[in-house]
């Protein structure tokens, strides 16, 4: 592990300790950590927890945090406040316009989540807006967005969301995808227009969108009112979202922890019913609760412990993610390995893998032949001049490994 990874791990552990100390408390800063305040600040930025950390530091009974850090957090907190209120104004304007034109729209995450969890917009950082609409209204909503100057666009991080492929008229995209991403007319923020929480393969891990509308609630923001998810849907949607991203951003876990702290407001029988219909979503929620308990010391309500009991699978995944966060300061963020680790049916896993190969043959070529890993090098040591032979050794090794695995599975399944 590199020094940078190690110092990020230290910063993340410090951050977690600070998040656990909700009411005052003390958190000493050894001189070494004080001189390395930038790593801590970067970690807070990465996990999008600047406002919360700034206020937790202010409330420490004997503040020993480096003054440079406090000043940095103060400035960033003010920037975040300003950005949040601005985004909330745009959100209310946009949802009002869509509703006026007959498009049912629900907001989730962003301003409405900040309001639900903290009663204001300042303590939660957010950078874009998320809207949920009905699949059959995507075309209409897209036209309205376009008429207001919003442009469908990929981000540098998500170039696969090409406007050409993700056009609303593309029924294939509507069926398999989950969103179209728009850039605001002034080019300062993105709006994700969702009709699903996840792409087709991962939908079993998310709440049923068809039921969202029956349980939606009206919410007041300082800028106006809008419709948002019911609390139980919100809880399960947050669990699904964080799990899909392997909880690489601790802000998502803090959100879940805040909901669990206000668990009285949750109807657990409804959650039980919802997770019974969608066990994948229950597994994601179980993982979320487990991580929130382990990392943020959130007391788990008895109902939650019963309904979302950790299985061997969720425990193993929680442990892996916890290790990644504590040692390196971040998790890999890979949705595929995360959700496949929760997937209980081997048939579904194989279906997913084969569909992925059919769709991305070039990725198969890269994975099987192109990428030489430590296991290949560990099999046989080749001199530098003969390293090209690894490209032949690797497919043979993979075929043997997977054939053995399949044979073992078949052997166990037949008795």
């Amino acid at each position, binding site marked *: 592990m590199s020094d940078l990874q190690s110092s990020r791990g230290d910063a993340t552990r410090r951050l977690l300790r600070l998040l656990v100390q909700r009411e005052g408390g003390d958190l000493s800063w050894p001189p070494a950590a004080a001189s390395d305040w930038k790593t801590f600040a970067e970690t807070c930025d990465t996990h999008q927890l600047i406002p919360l950390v700034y206020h937790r530091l202010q409330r420490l009974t004997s503040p020993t945090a480096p003054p440079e850090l406090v000043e940095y957090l103060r400035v960033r907190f003010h920037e975040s406040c300003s950005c949040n209120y601005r985004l909330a104004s745009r959100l209310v304007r946009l949802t009002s316009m869509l509703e006026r034109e007959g498009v049912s729209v629900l907001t989730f995450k962003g301003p409405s989540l900040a309001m639900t969890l903290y009663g204001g917009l300042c303590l939660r950082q957010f950078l874009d807006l998320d809207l949920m609409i009905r699949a059959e209204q995507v075309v209409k909503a897209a036209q309205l967005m376009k008429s207001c100057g919003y442009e469908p666009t990929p981000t540098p991080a998500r*170039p696969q969301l090409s406007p050409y492929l993700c056009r609303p008229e593309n029924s294939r995209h509507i069926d398999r995808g989950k969103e179209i991403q728009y850039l605001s007319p002034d080019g300062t923020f993105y709006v994700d227009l969702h009709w699903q929480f996840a792409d087709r393969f991962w939908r079993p891990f998310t709440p049923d969108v068809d039921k969202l509308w029956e349980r939606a609630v009206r919410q007041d923001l300082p800028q106006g009112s809008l419709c948002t998810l019911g609390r139980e849907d919100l809880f399960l949607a947050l669990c699904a*979202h964080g799990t899909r991203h392997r909880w690489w951003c601790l802000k998502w876990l803090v959100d879940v922890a805040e909901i669990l702290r206000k668990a009285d407001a949750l109807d657990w029988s409804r959650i039980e019913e919802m997770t019974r219909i969608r066990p994948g979503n229950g597994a994601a929620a179980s993982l979320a609760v487990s991580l929130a308990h382990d990392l943020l010391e959130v007391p788990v309500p008895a109902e939650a412990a019963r309904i979302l009991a950790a299985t061997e699978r969720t425990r193993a995944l929680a442990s892996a993610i916890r290790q990644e966060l504590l040692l390196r300061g971040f998790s*890999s963020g890979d949705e595929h390995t995360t959700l496949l680790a929760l997937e209980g049916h081997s048939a579904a896993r194989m279906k997913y893998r084969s569909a992925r190969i059919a769709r991305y043959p070039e990725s198969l070529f890269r994975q099987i032949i192109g990428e030489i890993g430590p296991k290949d090098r560990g099999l046989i040591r080749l001199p530098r001049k003969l390293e090209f032979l690894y490209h032949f050794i690797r497919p043979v090794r993979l075929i043997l490994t997977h054939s053995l695995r399949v044979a073992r599975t078949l052997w166990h399944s037949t008795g």
Partner: protein
Amino acid sequence: MKPLARKSGIFAENLPEEVVLYDKTRDKVHCLNKTAAAVWENSDGSKTVDELTRAVEAKSGAPADRKLVLQALEELEEAGLMEAGVVREAGLPSRREAVGKMVLAGSALVATMVAAAPKAHASQDPPKGGDPPPLPTPHNPPPQPLPPIGFKPPAGGHKKP
């Protein structure tokens, strides 16, 4: 004259160490420190500056200076958080004097934030690989996630915008 704070069209978010005010009519955000917040909250049109100073003392639990209260009133008025003209008529120092005091005090009591327009960036771009994730700044977008199963990459590969 007794200072009167503008409360209509203002949404207040009380945080442990400061108060954030959102001016709905002007779409502006103001961050008040403890003193400024206490002055704004107690400026109900019934208290003189001296009474206000005592009220601020009682609220914050720390000794308050009349000059500091005057400075807070000046800044609140500049931020549009007082009823128009009320502070000026109360015989407060000129803007120049107030600025001089602000410098002496070391920092402003009211931070007004014009809704800045940063460059857009998506919030859910996961870090990947074995190296520490780059910071998600607008100039340093996080690495690309794997393509979802529902999409075929465009011919010729992905192009960064």
